[in-house]
């Protein structure tokens, strides 16, 4: 319980630090911090796991086990077009639930989801999936993460 609190405060300080200092509206540093953390974290988490069957299996892992240890809940909805696009929907994304759900705070949403985009991208990268992750917040506190798998 109390560990979540620490992470939440820490996250909001990271946002605070990276968003005010001379960066303007640039979220890339925030996303990169998430990426670096996700990349290293997944290496430790899945060390003793059997190999994932396929891409969908990996995504399911992100939605269930991964999400539930980090955010204490499952992703509410996973959709895919089976061509490399996945949409993960969280109806009450933890970093947004403490913010007023009126539309007037909507402009602040991007900075609170950028870290998590990076976290997903980093985790997938270390599982062998090269992707682009974006987030979309239409109404607080619900958030959709769009994962576009890059094939080369």
């Amino acid at each position, binding site marked *: 319980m*109390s*560990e*979540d*609190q*620490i*992470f939440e*405060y*820490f*996250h909001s*300080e*990271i946002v*605070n*630090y*990276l968003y005010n*200092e001379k960066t303007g509206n640039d979220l890339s*540093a925030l996303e*990169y*911090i*998430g990426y*670096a*953390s996700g990349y*290293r*974290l997944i290496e*430790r*988490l899945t060390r*003793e*796991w*059997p190999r994932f069957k396929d891409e969908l299996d990996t995504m399911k892992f992100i939605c269930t*086990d*991964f999400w*539930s*240890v*980090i955010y*204490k809940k499952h992703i509410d909805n996973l959709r895919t077009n089976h061509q490399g696009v996945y949409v993960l929907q969280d109806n009450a994304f933890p970093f947004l639930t403490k913010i007023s759900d009126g539309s007037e705070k909507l402009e602040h949403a991007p900075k609170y989801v950028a870290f998590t985009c990076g976290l997903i991208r980093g985790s997938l990268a270390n599982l062998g999936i090269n992707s682009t992750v974006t987030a979309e917040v239409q109404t607080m506190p619900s958030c959709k993460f769009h994962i576009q798998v890059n094939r080369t």
Partner: protein
Amino acid sequence: MSRQATRLDAKKVNSELLTLTYGSLVSQMLRDFENIDDVNKQLERIGYNMGMRLIEDFLSRTSSPRCLEMRDTADKVQQAFRMYLNVQPTISNWSAAGDEYSLIFDNNPLTEFVELPPDMTNLRYCGILCGCIRGALEMVQLEVQCWFVQDQLKGDNNTEIRIKFIRRLEDAIPAGED
């Protein structure tokens, strides 16, 4: 089915996530600032801001009464470390006047997986902890000074944080009521 047997350990993952995220932040800061002293300052400031918010959470969870002397405070600080970081520092090396003591950590969750490159000996990697303690105590009207005496990252056996009581902060008189 074998996957069911190897579910992730939430506690462990959380502390690793915190450690790794902290590491990412520090390396980002080292990229942002040329000067290591500036990084130290930023880490301390982030800690301070967190401490100011954490104290409220701490007081509401523990419903602890006001501390009357530094020894009580030391116990609470120790308890807070146990609650939030799951480590138990030892309190020791009290000064004769009872206004200064040390927190000694056998292991420090923030420094797991961390090694300092030799050219960064003046980086206070865990400076955030000092900031946190300072910020939290300031909210209960105690001004303290807080610094590292020993650091495992620099080859010492333990990590030791020294806390020194400076003064009691008095409630300021509201403006216009002098």
